[in-house]
């Protein structure tokens, strides 16, 4: 992980393959660095030879008589070309074998027992399911935020509910397309606690730019706590505003698309909102989850993410206010 210490300044952040936090991204980074080193050195040598060649062969004459090739020079040049080609082939083989080795190393993780998570790509958000519990109705379902325990092997089963998307969290692993009609698996492990960002990498229409997710790697204890919390049904409103907000929620178009477990809202077109307040971002990584953003989003999502499936929701300010209060209570 230290071999790219010099790159650390240039590639900061939680969405780059050059700051690996899992074994696969680390292996890939090694290959990337090898390819970078070889190609850079070769490039510099070729450019140096070319420059020296041009400078030495340059003539000031306007257009000299075409040369008659000198056999001994031609023979020497043939040898040089042959040797250069031999070296090229050798270097290609080195990179090829290293590439195969890395492919193998990133695949071995899949042989270990793993925790399963289903990820479904939607236009333009990510549905996440934890089918760990035996009873299906107790399955955890969330959106755009994947919690995993640090050090655990996780098997992501990915597919799409509409068009092709691509699941990519570069600090952890390379990308995998989510295709309608196919299931693609991606096995990964995160060794460093933190929140790592991922983004859709296959063009999927209007809001391809706003289709991000977070992978939250936390200690086993924190993860279990989160998981148990997510299993519970939605919190009952404790204030009159929140109670009114729930009524607004259940009597407006919200229920056409969203689920809040513990209420009659039970549709799967949009993200499950049972614990929406526990998530750090809304609108697939577009906005921080705070009261102002949530209000703006509910009132008119189209001004934030034009073309998204969430319609504008005109309603009296007091209703909107209570609705947000209710949503914020869904920890």
């Amino acid at each position: 992980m230290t071999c790219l210490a010099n790159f650390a300044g240039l590639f900061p952040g939680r969405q780059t393959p050059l700051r690996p936090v899992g074994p696969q991204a680390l292996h890939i980074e090694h290959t990337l660095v090898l390819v970078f080193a070889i190609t850079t050195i070769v490039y510099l040598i070729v450019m140096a030879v070319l420059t020296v060649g041009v400078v030495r062969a340059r003539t000031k004459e306007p257009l000299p008589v075409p040369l008659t090739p000198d056999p001994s020079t031609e023979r020497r040049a043939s040898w040089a070309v042959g040797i250069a080609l031999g070296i090229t082939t050798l270097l290609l083989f080195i990179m090829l074998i290293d590439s195969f080795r890395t492919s193998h190393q990133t695949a071995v993780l899949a042989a270990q027992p793993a925790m399963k998570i289903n990820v479904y790509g939607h236009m333009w958000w990510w549905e996440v399911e934890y089918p760990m519990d035996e009873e299906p109705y107790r399955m955890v379902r969330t959106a755009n935020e994947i919690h995993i325990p640090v050090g655990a092997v996780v098997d992501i089963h990915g597919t799409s509910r509409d068009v092709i998307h691509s699941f990519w969290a570069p600090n952890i692993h390379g990308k995998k397309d989510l295709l309608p009609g196919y299931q693609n698996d991606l096995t990964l492990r995160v060794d460093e606690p933190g929140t790592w960002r991922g983004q859709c990498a296959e063009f999927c229409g209007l809001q391809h730019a706003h289709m991000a997710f977070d992978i939250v790697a936390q200690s086993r204890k924190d993860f279990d706590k989160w998981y148990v919390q997510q299993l519970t049904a939605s919190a009952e409103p404790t204030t009159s505003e929140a109670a009114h907000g729930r009524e607004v929620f259940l009597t407006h178009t919200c229920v056409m698309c969203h689920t809040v477990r513990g209420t009659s809202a039970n549709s799967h077109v949009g993200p499950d909102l049972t614990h929406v307040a526990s998530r750090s971002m809304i609108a697939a990584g577009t906005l921080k989850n705070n009261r102002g953003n949530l209000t703006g989003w509910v009132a008119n999502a189209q001004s934030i993410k034009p073309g998204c499936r969430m319609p504008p929701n005109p309603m009296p300010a007091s209703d909107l206010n209570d609705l947000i209060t209710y949503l914020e209570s869904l920890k």
Partner: protein
Amino acid sequence: MSEQRAVMRLEPVLPEKEQARAAQLAEVWKEPPGFIGWFKAIHHTTIGKRFILTAFAFFLAAGLLAGAMRLQLAFPESHLMSPDLYNQIFTMHGSTMMFLFAVPMMFEALSVYLVPLMLGTRQIAFPRLNAYSYYLYLFGGLMLFAFFFVNSGPDRGWFAYVPLSGPDYGPGKRADIWAQLITFTEVSALCVAVEVVVTTFKLRAPGMSLNRIPIFVWGQVVTAFMVIFAMPGVVVASTMLLLDRTCGTQFFNPAVGGDVLLFQHLFWWFGHPEVYIIFIPGTVIVSTVLSTFCRRHMFGYLAVILSLIATGFIAFGLWVHHMFATGIPQMSESFFTAASMMIAIPTGTQIFCWIATITTGKVVLKTPMWWVLGFFFVFIIGGMTGIYVASVPVDLQVHDTYFIVAHFHYVLIGGAVFPLFAAFAYWFPKMTGRMMSEKLGLWSFWLFTIGFNVTFFPMHIVGLRGMPRRVYTYPAGAGWTVLNQIESLGYLFLFAGVAMFLVNVWRSLKRGELAGPNPWQAGGLEWAVPSPPPAYNFLNLPTVNGSEPLWDAAPDQPIVTGLKEDVREVLTTRILDAEPEGRDEMPAPSIWPFLAAVATTALFIGSIFRPIAVSIGAIPLGITLIAWFWPTREESERRRKQDIWQTE
């Protein structure tokens, strides 16, 4: 000694008898005059020039669209453009650059203009088909932009993956327009491919055996074969898409057993060779310019030709490296990794042969040579980043990020546009009779080269910082803003470089120094004819003694005599050794290819809206084709007599 010969051929002083012949040939081969005559023209230099101008106009249009994208991406979370408009613009940019600029310019335009001249013949094979292919291409491009201006431009990317472009997720007619643009340009490219192959194999000057064909022509022949094998893949894909959208077929609908990956396989079966269809003409321009400005035959002629052919074959074994992330089994991915790396070997061979040509030659640094040096500097970076893409694990990280945007612009602008500007500077005197300004040429070269690197180099970094492609905007805090702003700044230099080139063209057309037939003292046959070439190209059809015919000519190099000069007759030769075989009469100018193209256009555009348009449109198309091939009495009479003469 060669110089003497070159000079001797440079200024042919025509005796009176020759002048009379020239006048007669000019009369026989001339294009019809007047406004209607413009649509009847079929000579390859006329059509070639139209191809070049049209393709360059599309290059400028797509370049302006790129400017719009750079403006949008100069600021994070920018609301300058709606995502809908941005998606149309990036799709238009990609589709125009690939289908209306790169392939038509590098392959069709250059080969239509130059191949017959380089082979020493008077006309391209199937000249009416050639005119037809030009009009089809022009109409396809005009259709695309017409729909774009009424807010119906394709918006699914130049690759139009299903199901995003399918009936369920691609409302309106946008994806159908994309699919028909493909049909237009591919039919046009296929026509030209056939012409280039037949011209090269049947119409070469006597003595131009396979091992003396100019490298440029070899490259275009390899490209033509690649077009013939690759294009059907994308035509099938786009037609199946159109059928899914307009006729209710379900090729790509997974819900009823269709397959979304099928489209990708078909598309990339074409899409990867496409890159080499664009790049091979670039490499052979480099070879041609290098041998002239290094004042020697290309080092390793045979190795270079074999590399071109090898590239043509291997290019068909690479397509899956565009699909490494789709979940294809690891073993099969490994084959494609190996093939993708293997193609570096023929390309490397060419690069080493070029460097050997330079180091063993006498380098004359004129504008075309500067563009070739720029090509080395830029393209090899693109070649090196190609290794990242070939390696499955690394590709899984860089695929569909700005790293790829950087990679393929280094490959395509480096591998095609730099050589193209070299070609313009090199052949401009041939096409117009006037030299371009060296000073303005160098200005545009440096502005373009600096602008290119400022625009595209930071994309490598921003891609490795995690920025995906095809996003209409990006968050402010991701560390991408400054790099994007540098890229947008670089666009201004690119713009200035191209503008400088246009100024140069304009001024040179008016005030450029007169070029004469062979201003570079080059060895190719195209330099044996006056600049610009007369309608009959060659007064005396040449014979050939080497791969650089003017340099290799013997002092008493014979010429071809005995062709009829009161009709459009050309000499046909045998495939391997180009021994004279017979005479063939070329068709006369005709309005029918143009009208057939109009009928085809109506059919194609109609089929976007109603499937029945294919059946109805076939009627006018059939009529125009019958008229096109309707023989004249005199022509049939002449052909009959000639056939008798030949079999005697």
